């Protein structure tokens, strides 16, 4: 059996359509069976409400007198794109204010406009014969704009990997605050309510399909950027009229230490046309699995700590290496349900004309990493290969002589097998000399906790380590902990002017 979209729209018009939210569908299918569920249910509404960084809006301000072609544009001191000619611009949600940093950004401009607040536009131009004006400053309300069209390149992620931090320091990420030593887990997404999770093959979600966006009726433009439905991480590009949106579903936010983002409500009605739709909308939280990634590793490929599903994440506790770790959702499940419920009412009231995609989105797409024709500098490009080290059983005096001779301030300490066991600095030795005590050997005064780097580590990561530990040098080690070089602040000078490229 199949149901045509026309039949479904007809039932909606007649007030006979059965519309359910996605979280009710697993129960209905379990109770009625798939065939009966197909006959019974006409539309399943989905919803999600969370941080969607890749969001923004196009504005058209209308022409000033005399007219200006705006080249640099700020809205409440948040810079907007000036390459669209005359009085159009695009403001990105994560763009930060030049005056208030991460406490205000593009997302706040969008929310302020929707909330009916006044926003100051400042713009500059070099002036042309046709657009003579060079500067403009004016206070604007949303109603003063010709168009305010939210247009988000990457929204409604199908699911999102959860985050944990195995290092011994607190991390501030776009996945929120991650406590040290696997102290908590954060996750995002509405699980079984999530739009694409209810249509992972993208049969019914495609170009032109009507959606709920920020409290307004919007639509799917098409495939979202970085979309990877083949791997279970589909995204959508969507748009909607900001003038019809509500602050209830559009909220600016700041992830401390990361920056500004936009919390947004997105929902999609899925017409139940065949058994495939019945099956895909019967998805439950426990069917949707993600990786729990260690954000302590500053790399694109973060290690997977374990697999975890949305039911486990939402339960509040997830077991990691035999210990229960508390979880935090960063997206709002209450709001996600509210989006799906509101959309259900809209469909029941006949406000949404359901359509099939005018063009399908390929479910085969898979995201690629960046092609890097020039690799960034790594430690081996700038490190100092002359290593002067000292044995742990040598006398402090010997270490002092080596420091003097080697014109260095840092001396890695090695054991009998030649492996790194500590580090001494001129400071440690001065201290030992100034306060003569029992210490006579290097191992008595060395610092045993050594911050190290490796030859293939990107310099940016190594520099982060130096800054974080407030040190000016560290040993470069191989896998076995042999010291192969030193990286000092002086070596960083090679980065200037691209001298490391040679």
């Amino acid at each position, binding site marked *: 059996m199949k149901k045509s979209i026309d039949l479904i729209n007809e039932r909606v018009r007649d007030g006979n359509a059965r519309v359910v939210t996605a979280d009710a569908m697993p129960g209905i299918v379990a109770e009625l069976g798939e065939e009966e569920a197909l006959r019974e249910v006409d539309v399943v509404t989905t919803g999600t409400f*969370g941080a969607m960084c890749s969001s923004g809006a196009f504005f058209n301000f209308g022409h000033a007198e005399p007219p200006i072609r705006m080249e640099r544009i700020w809205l409440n001191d948040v810079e907007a794109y000036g390459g669209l000619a005359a009085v159009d611009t695009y403001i990105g949600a994560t763009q930060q204010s030049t005056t208030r940093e991460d406490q205000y950004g593009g997302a706040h401009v969008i929310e302020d406009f929707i909330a009916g607040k006044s926003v100051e536009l400042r713009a500059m131009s070099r002036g042309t014969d046709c657009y003579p004006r060079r500067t403009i400053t004016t206070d604007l309300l949303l109603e003063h704009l010709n168009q305010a069209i939210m247009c988000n390149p990457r929204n409604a992620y199908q699911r999102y990997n959860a985050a944990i931090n195995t290092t011994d320091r607190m991390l501030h990420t776009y996945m*929120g605050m991650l*406590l040290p030593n696997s102290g*908590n887990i*954060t996750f995002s997404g509405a699980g079984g309510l999530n739009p694409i999770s209810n249509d992972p093959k993208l049969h019914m979600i495609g170009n032109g399909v009507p959606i709920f966006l920020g409290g307004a009726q919007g639509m799917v433009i098409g495939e979202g950027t970085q979309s990877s439905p083949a791997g279970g991480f589909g995204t959508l590009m969507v748009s909607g009229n900001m003038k019809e949106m509500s602050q209830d579903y559009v909220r600016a*936010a700041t992830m401390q230490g990361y920056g500004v983002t936009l919390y947004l409500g997105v929902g999609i009605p899925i017409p139940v046309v065949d058994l495939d739709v019945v099956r895909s909308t019967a998805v439950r939280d426990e069917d949707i699995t993600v990786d729990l990634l260690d954000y302590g590793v500053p790399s694109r490929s973060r290690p997977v700590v374990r697999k975890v599903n949305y039911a486990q994440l939402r339960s509040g506790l997830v077991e990691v290496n035999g210990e229960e770790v508390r979880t935090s959702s960063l997206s709002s499940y209450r709001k996600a349900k509210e989006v799906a419920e509101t959309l259900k009412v809209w469909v029941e009231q006949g406000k949404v004309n359901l359509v099939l995609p005018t063009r399908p989105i390929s479910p085969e797409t898979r995201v690629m990493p960046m092609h890097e024709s020039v690799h960034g500098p790594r430690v081996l490009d700038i490190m100092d290969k002359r290593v002067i080290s000292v044995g742990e059983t040598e006398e402090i005096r010997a270490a002092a002589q080596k420091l003097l001779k080697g014109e260095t301030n840092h001396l890695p300490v090695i054991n009998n097998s030649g492996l790194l066991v500590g580090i001494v600095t001129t400071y440690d030795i001065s201290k030992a000399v100034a306060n003569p005590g029992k210490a006579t050997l290097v191992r008595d005064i060395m610092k045993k906790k050594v911050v190290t780097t490796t030859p293939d580590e990107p310099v940016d990561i190594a520099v982060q380590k130096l800054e974080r530990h407030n040190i000016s040098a560290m040993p470069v080690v191989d896998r076995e902990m042999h010291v192969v070089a030193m990286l000092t602040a002086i070596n960083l000078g090679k980065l200037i002017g691209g001298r490391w490229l040679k």
Partner: protein
Amino acid sequence: MKLLVNFSKKAGQKPIIAQVVKDTGVLINVERAIIDSSEGEALIDIPDDTCRIVKEKLADLGATVRVLEHGIILDETECVDCGACVSVCPHEVFYLDEHWVIRLREGRCVLCGRCIDACPHHALYQKDEA
């Protein structure tokens, strides 16, 4: 009830809280304390009916005492019930109820302020009770 006790360096060298416990017999629970070379601050929890005597005794010993009537405060207009605060709180003050709405067990709060930083929506704040 919770009291915030501040003492200067001079007084900090005396075992103020121990002295109060000894003199009053009230069992004081120290929930949080920061003491450095120049000053100290301690958040203590005591039975409500001992408030007057503990406060007086602390004041006699040179400390300034504030009664903290509120734990962390949630601004419901800003909160979207995401839950970012839930797992970062060391005292499990926050939880999501059966309607996925954030609830507070205010009595557990020791005003460490970690949730204030973790909240993406600036919905949590500490009331200035000065």
